[in-house]
């Protein structure tokens, strides 16, 4: 399904009383299966746009649609259910749960409850029947063989791989990634970037990535550049070098 943002604006009140415009009349259309990069300087509104597109934040003005469903008119609980059914999330600092094994982390979203989504044969359950089996398979796919140890003992690259596996548990239609390679060294960043793009393609999922990483941006179908809350430009098929800098 197509994810659309129409005339979305959002501002925040700053501690000094001033108002910061985070998004300013943003319009964006992301076709199913598209790999979209969002780039821009720090504080330009990249992450805010990602949160608005994923239903975590609701814009003050404008509409976000998932197909015919209007995310912006849903109550918070409905948006939670939407994310559980349709979306996967990858964060810059992995944000895995300590005290839990990789397999426990990956399977955790299955404990949130049932979520249904529209399928070709009507509503279907988004959650896998055997979450731990699926989690094990996903960990194998992302190259994590030791699935029993605590995630805090893993390298940063390994942790981000676990986080990518977690994002894939419910076979998401769209994967949101917020600076997924920013906390990694160059070599790990390249591996994780390729992995993320690869698994999204395998799953047929839309991939929306906020990043400064030119190598990762180079693997996107499109890059939306944002500055001071405004989508300044749209670049199709970036060549890599210089994009987003």
């Amino acid at each position: 399904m197509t994810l659309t943002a129409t005339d979305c604006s959002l501002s925040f009140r700053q501690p000094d009383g001033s108002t910061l415009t985070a998004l300013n009349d943003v319009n964006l259309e992301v076709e199913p299966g598209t790999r979209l990069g969002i780039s821009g300087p720090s504080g330009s509104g990249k992450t805010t746009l990602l949160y608005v597109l994923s239903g975590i934040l609701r814009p003050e003005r404008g509409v976000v649609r998932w197909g015919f469903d209007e995310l912006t008119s849903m109550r918070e609980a409905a948006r939670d259910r939407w994310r559980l059914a349709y979306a996967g999330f990858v964060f810059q600092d992995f944000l895995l749960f300590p005290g839990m094994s990789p397999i426990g982390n990956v399977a955790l979203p299955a404990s949130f409850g049932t979520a249904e989504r529209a399928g070709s044969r009507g509503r279907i359950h988004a959650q896998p029947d055997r979450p731990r089996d699926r989690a094990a398979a996903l960990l194998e796919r992302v190259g994590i063989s030791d699935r029993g140890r605590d995630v805090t003992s893993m390298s940063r690259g390994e942790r981000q791989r676990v986080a990518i596996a977690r994002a894939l548990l419910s076979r998401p239609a769209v994967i949101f990634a917020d600076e997924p390679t920013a906390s990694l060294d160059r070599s790990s960043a390249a591996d994780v970037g390729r992995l993320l793009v690869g698994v999204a393609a395998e799953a047929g999922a839309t991939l929306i990535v906020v990043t400064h990483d030119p190598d990762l941006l180079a693997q996107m179908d499109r890059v939306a550049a944002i500055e001071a809350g405004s989508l300044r430009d749209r670049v199709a098929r970036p060549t890599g070098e210089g994009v987003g800098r």
Partner: protein
Amino acid sequence: MNPVPYVLSDLRSGRGTAAVVTLLIAFSVAIGIGVSAQELAVRRAANAAADPFDLIVGAPGSQTQLLLSSVYLQPSAIGLVPGSVLQELTERPEVAFLSPLGFGDQYAGYPIVGVVPGFATRNNRAGLADGRVFAALDEAVVGSRVRLDIGDEFTPVHGFLEGGIGSPHGEFTYRVVGRMATRNSPWDAAILVAIESVWFIHGMGTGHAEDGSIFGHAAAVPIGPPWTAVEVPGVPAIAVEPATIRDAYVLRSELRNRPTTTAIFPAEVLFELYALLGDASAILAVFSLATQLLVVMAVLVVVGLTQRHKRSSFAVLRALGAPSGYVLLAVWLAVAVQVVAGVLLGVGLGQIVAWVLSRIASDQTGLTVVATVSAREWRRAGLLGAAALVLAVIPAIISYRDQVADALRR
């Protein structure tokens, strides 16, 4: 929705904090339970110790003081009942048995009490553990906890203080001839001697008509009633076993109203004492519960503060699609696990605290105090746990209302 996997990982990753929280709650509950169980146990023990004493006659004054001095052997200076009353009661048909109780001396901290021989065997209803009853002026029967053996001799010291800060009674010595069976009362640490010897070494004669020097002739002095001296010495108290219940009331009523005596039923004085202490006990119970609740609230504040550090975790849960109710339940459940574990552990520890306090109370009072955690303590612990579970909703609600985007940015 099943937040258990998350809660378990949360407790595992913060096991140090969880252990401290659980232990704080456990200690709070344990102390409350220990003290509460103790109070009940001391009452039971005090009742049991007073059981053999039907009626106590003493000089006018504080009934509580008379009770403490005579039943619980608490050292204090109380007035004397005239010897004439002792003589009179010996002849009264309402009296089945009596014994004067002559306090004032001690040996190595053990109070020496002048009584009649029958008192050592509870008027022949209880045998001795060893030896025989004293039959002469210089013989003694010791309580079960007195560290003297049969055949040992000792010199009494005037006064109540251990270590003999008081004057030794000259050349007078007692010889131990018997040991009482355990009574589970302060009398287990007492030394029983003939009342005549107490009178004698205080220069009051022997209470019998044929007085004279007894050194070397102790066996010649009669022991026990009737006391035939023209002027029988006074005694601090008289333990009376009335012939019938009616007689008990007759004697109490009559002796209470005389200018030279008072009479008490120990059980009645204890009851009045408990009634008085009961109000204080109820107030203490409220304060105790309030204190425990404050501890639990302080613990919950700590829990709440630690939850603030977990904001990003909760935000991740929400971003991954967990409903807000999942976060609320997860936070509450994590606290609930610690509270319930703390309360259960506290009840167990409370049993240990009660046991330790019982030992201390037994050593200090001579009573056999056995404290057990009863339904009352379980109820109080349950009440505290329930209050904590209700209060735990507060950090849960705070976490649940948190803004996901704000928390994710931190």
